[in-house]
């Protein structure tokens, strides 16, 4: 009886604590890496519009994509379950989705790092459900795609 109680309460508690400590560390490291990589692309615009006035004629254009699947940690999953009762912004989820979007856009740009601009960038988010059932809550895929253009620099 006592053993069952320890297992029944202990394991989820350990998972929540591990999720809190390791998840927070991963998140911090990820935000740092995002900021650093975004700085490298600052001179090349990522536009969500189709039409823009390029400073030089366009030589070539091609489709680029970047995607990432992320999942929420156990601590945040636990906390957001409480948030669902009272309502309001679920911050635990907003940072997760923000990380995923920024990562997807960066991967899109990194797939053609030499492009001069990325136009008509689209973001698409979808949730994944696992084969085992409802666990899929909190697992999302973000896809970023757009057209990478190169300017014609020939004299």
């Amino acid at each position, binding site marked *: 009886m006592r053993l069952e109680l320890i297992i029944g309460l202990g394991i989820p508690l350990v998972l929540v604590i591990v999720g809190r400590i390791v998840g927070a560390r991963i998140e911090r490291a990820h935000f740092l890496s995002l900021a650093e990589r975004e700085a490298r692309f600052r001179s090349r615009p990522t536009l969500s519009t189709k039409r823009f006035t390029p400073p030089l004629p366009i030589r070539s254009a*091609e*489709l680029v994509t970047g995607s990432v699947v992320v999942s929420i940690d156990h601590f945040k999953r636990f906390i957001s379950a409480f948030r669902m009762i009272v309502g309001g912004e679920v911050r635990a989820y907003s940072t997760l989705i923000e990380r995923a979007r920024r990562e997807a856009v960066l991967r899109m740009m990194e797939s053609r790092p030499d492009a001069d601009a990325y136009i008509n960038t689209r973001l698409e988010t*979808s949730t*994944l459900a696992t*084969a085992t059932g409802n666990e899929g809550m909190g697992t999302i895929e973000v896809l970023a795609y*757009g057209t990478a253009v190169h300017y014609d620099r020939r004299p």
Partner: protein
Amino acid sequence: MILTNIEIVPGHQIVQHFGLVQGSTIRAKHFGRDFAAGLKNIVGGELKGYTELLQESRAEATQRMIAQATELGANAVVNVRFTTSSVAQGASEILAYGTAVRIE
């Protein structure tokens, strides 16, 4: 084959339209990957196995779209769009579609 997700191919003139082309694939998750992802779920973060799986599927769907366009005699696909939907538990469909055109 040139793909863009805008209505034109910059630097080229579209001379002929062939209409809509599409390619899709439905993928189920691999058990091993699902298990690893279950463990990764505890600490959160990226599930690399799934990222790769979906990228492979998207490449496959794009290839099927390109094959359809080639068959029509097109040499470019413009206004390409991607969508994802889950058709059943553990399986997702990835669709790529666009307009096949011939450019000069």
